[in-house]
């Protein structure tokens, strides 16, 4: 049993090869698991909102908790002006959460453990936040790069530093999610491999570790979705309520 712990991340084609203008857009296992996550979200929210009872059923309770959780997060971090962006942040959080959680099931594929997926999400957020900032404040948005109360000699230096820190947002946002998911899943597989190779005699210790790590990974899966959403809120807050 010599299995490669990185094998779980390989993307392969399902079904026929589809090419449009030289770009490969075939249906892969990654697309499949994204669709599974999206379908699971739709099913969950459909069941949760189907019967609007005063005393909620369990699934309705979870759906309502989720709604409240995101609504509170947005109003806490970005204020009341961010209300119109609730649908986007809710979808973002739930999608990342479900992708992470679906990835925790055995034999499944973790979509968010690929940097291309997280980077596209992060770049979209970055571009959207920048556009919103310019729409709301015009060129005044550039004040974000010029903090007040800085001596004139230091101003060019500080501005460059601010611009770098602004540009690093999508990178840190995407790398955090991708690295956490990939590291966690690799670790799980490595410990799983130890169980097999140590056999009945010594395999119990790594088995215990595996169980503990699975718990930790579920925590990380939730936390990373939360961090992704809350950082989007923080960036949105910068764009909506300019204060420097």
């Amino acid at each position: 049993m010599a299995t490669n712990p990185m094998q779980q991340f390989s993307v392969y084609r399902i079904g026929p090869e589809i090419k449009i203008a030289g770009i490969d857009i075939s249906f892969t296992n990654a697309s499949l698991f994204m669709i599974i996550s999206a379908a699971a979200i739709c099913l969950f929210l459909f069941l949760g909102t189907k019967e609007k009872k005063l005393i909620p059923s369990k699934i309705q309770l979870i759906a309502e908790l989720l709604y409240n959780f995101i609504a509170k997060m947005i109003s806490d971090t970005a204020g009341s002006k961010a209300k119109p962006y609730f649908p986007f942040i809710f979808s973002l959080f739930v999608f990342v959460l479900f992708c992470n959680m679906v990835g925790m099931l055995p034999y499944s594929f973790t979509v968010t453990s690929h940097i291309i997926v997280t980077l596209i999400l992060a770049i979209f957020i970055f571009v959207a936040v920048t556009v919103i900032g310019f729409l709301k404040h015009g060129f005044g948005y550039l004040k974000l790069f010029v903090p007040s109360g800085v001596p004139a000699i230091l101003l060019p230096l500080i501005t460059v530093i601010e611009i770098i820190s602004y540009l690093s947002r999508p990178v840190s946002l995407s790398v955090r999610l991708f690295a956490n998911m990939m590291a966690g899943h690799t670790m799980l597989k490595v410990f799983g491999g130890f169980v097999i190779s140590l056999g009945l005699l010594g395999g119990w210790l790594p088995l215990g570790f595996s169980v503990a790590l699975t718990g930790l990974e579920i925590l990380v899966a939730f936390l990373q979705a939360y961090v992704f959403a809350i950082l989007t809120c923080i960036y949105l807050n910068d764009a909506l309520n300019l204060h420097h």
Partner: protein
Amino acid sequence: MIKQKDFKTRLKIAKSKLKNNSESDEEKRGSFIGFAFKLGTELVASVAVGTIIGFILDTWFDTKPWLIIIFFFLGSAAGILNVIRTAKRMQEEGEVKE
């Protein structure tokens, strides 16, 4: 009638309990772990982005290796600035919640 009264007092007690710990310890811990995850990557990402910008500008202006060195340090400064900002935000939130 007695039953209804009983229910009302129970509801009152439950409501007052809810008010007292609307911000549970676990919730607080959750958001702090979130911020802790943020700190690490923030530092690394800024350095990486700074260095990449330096590299691109270097190939544009043909000034190897000066801009990459300068932008590496600027990136590090940006990273430290980000970490300080996040830490400040953490402190503020902790003070508000307590």
